[in-house]
């Protein structure tokens, strides 16, 4: 998906809605697979669908994105196959990583998804390196790294922002501020109560955006990608969003937050908001919207069947791919 205008055209709007619905259905199915004991410790992205969708709407297959331990939504927004993703979650040989990476490490270089990463903040410098490649090669490619509010406390963010800024690298630092690092509230762990403010210290734009609004994500993402492609350097985006579920499968979020707060954010649900926009602007009829939703459900169901029917990797895979050559 690659468009350049500031407001999404109807085709892009419908792509965004389909992508976000697909993410939600995928996460719901992934949870069911986890409940059935087929994977453990999954980190659900439900509630955060709009963030990567609004950004990835501006990206091509040869642009790179980098994720976190919670990255299924990034992968889907970047166009990674649902079948291969679900197979990866189930540890099957047909998975994106041949079953060897799992939910926290999905990667698909052909689609420009260079990896979910289980070490908080670890991917930020790596994404900066992908932007360096684009600059050295003289392409107009961009690199996007998604990270959480928790990662904003890691030194890697600061070192990478400094590098990206002094070299004017085409990279987007996208903080998905879902308000909690595991159980630790954002307002406790981030001094100054803002991630975006930190951009000023590194001489780059820092933008706060409503991460529950796909339209705003699209607009802010479009400007940052335009800057990057034009050689104007990096942007730091703080997308304010919310994780509906616990940090991982067994985590009960009410141990550290209130029902009222959850209800407030769910009332601003990104899917519902975009769906309302589609209706208000007559972008799609009710029947067309339903068809998109049905298609998303069917695609996820198909992915689940594919994953469940796929074989596990053979024992030879245990020691395969440690090196390219190791005589």
């Amino acid at each position: 998906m690659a468009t350049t205008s500031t407001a999404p055209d109807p085709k892009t709007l419908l792509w965004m809605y389909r992508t976000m619905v697909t993410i939600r259905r995928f996460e719901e199915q992934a949870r069911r697979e986890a409940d059935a004991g087929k994977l453990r410790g999954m980190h659900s992205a439900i509630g955060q669908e709009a963030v990567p969708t609004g950004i990835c709407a501006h990206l091509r297959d040869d642009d790179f994105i980098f994720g976190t331990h919670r990255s299924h939504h990034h992968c889907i927004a970047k166009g990674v196959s649902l079948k291969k993703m679900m197979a990866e979650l189930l540890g099957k040989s047909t998975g994106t990583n041949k079953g060897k990476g799992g939910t926290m490490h999905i990667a698909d270089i052909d689609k420009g998804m260079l990896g979910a990463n289980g070490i908080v903040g670890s991917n930020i410098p790596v994404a900066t390196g992908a932007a360096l490649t684009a600059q050295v090669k003289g392409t107009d490619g961009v690199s996007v790294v998604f990270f959480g509010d928790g990662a904003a406390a890691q030194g890697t963010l600061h070192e990478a922002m400094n590098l990206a800024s002094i070299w004017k690298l085409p990279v987007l630092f996208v903080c998905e501020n879902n308000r909690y690092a595991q159980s630790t509230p954002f307002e406790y762990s981030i001094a100054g109560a803002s991630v975006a403010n930190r951009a000023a210290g590194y001489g780059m734009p820092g933008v706060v955006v409503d991460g529950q609004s796909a339209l705003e994500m699209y607009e802010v993402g479009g400007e940052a990608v335009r800057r990057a492609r034009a050689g104007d350097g990096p942007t730091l985006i703080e997308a304010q969003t919310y994780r509906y579920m616990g940090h991982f499968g067994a985590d009960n979020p009410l141990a550290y937050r209130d029902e009222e707060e959850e209800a407030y954010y769910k009332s601003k649900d990104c899917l519902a908001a975009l769906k309302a926009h589609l209706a208000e602007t007559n972008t799609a009829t009710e029947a067309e919207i339903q068809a998109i939703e049905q298609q998303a459900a069917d695609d996820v169901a198909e992915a689940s069947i594919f994953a469940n029917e796929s074989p596990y990797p053979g024992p030879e895979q245990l020691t395969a791919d440690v090196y390219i050559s190791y005589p």
Partner: protein
Amino acid sequence: MVQAEATRKISFIQAINEAIAQEMRRDPKVIVMGEDAAGAAGRKGKEDAWGGAMRLTKGLYPEFGAARVRDTPISEAGFIGAGVGAAATGLRPVVELMYVGFFGVCADQIVNNAAKMHYMFGGKVDVPLTIMTAMGAGTGSAAQHSETLYSVFTHFPGLKCVVPSDPYTAKGLMTAAIRDNDPVIIFNNRQLMGFTPSGHVPEEAYTVPIGKARIAREGTDITLIGIGYTTHLCLQAAAELESRGFSAEVVDLLSLSPMDDETVLASVRKTRRAVIVDEDYPRCSIASDLSALIAEEAFDYLDAPPKRVTPPHTSVPYSGPLEALYVPTVERVVEAANEVLE
């Protein structure tokens, strides 16, 4: 009857937790820091929401308060480095590195500061820091959250490294670590976390000495050396070997640095055979170190070369069937023992 009443069973997690709580009561200099150490960062009515990712620090915040039990941002270099500085200036911090694989983020603080300060500063600065960390495969957590890695830390002079194998040794080693004046890393295997064996764990504080192995089972025909979780594999293998007529001795190493060379060597000199069972990567490891020790110091006693049971030289795979092939098993220990006994 009296014995049954006296037996106090607690889980591995409770044992660590109890050791920290008792040391905090005993010594106001002991503080705790880590990601979600309390959880919810002291929100009213939500205090102690997590008690650490492994629940090792549950209940400490309500008892000791925000000054001594600190939720940290996800800044391992920052808070482990702060632990080093606090230790060097009069506190006895206990810091949690959630998974040992995260040491990559803060290696500089551990290996260049914690390990070296005492030596580098002419013995004039002490760093009584305790780092506790979770390790081990078998939980479907993939390459970055399943490593064992203790061998890396034993490479560095100045660090002490201990690996409990059950609640009794967990409590005793944790207490010893907090009281020790050198930096100590305690490695807790995730497969043992919920483990509540039948053994007695005293309620009062006690220490298990750092630098001492224990004989977990006596035998005469072969020595099986286990570390933490793999000690249990050795014990199960020993039971199986017994049914085939062999008497296996099991050494539970407990302490990797310093290592109890004498207990290992005495056992091997007696049994004349050794199998080392280690879940860490096989190259430049504790297992290879033990193998060298036995070859160099007990060569004349050996009836067969020592054998190592380890994972292959590869990262930890996610897929269940592959992970099952990765970790050492009882079957592989028995197989190795049979080869050595032949």
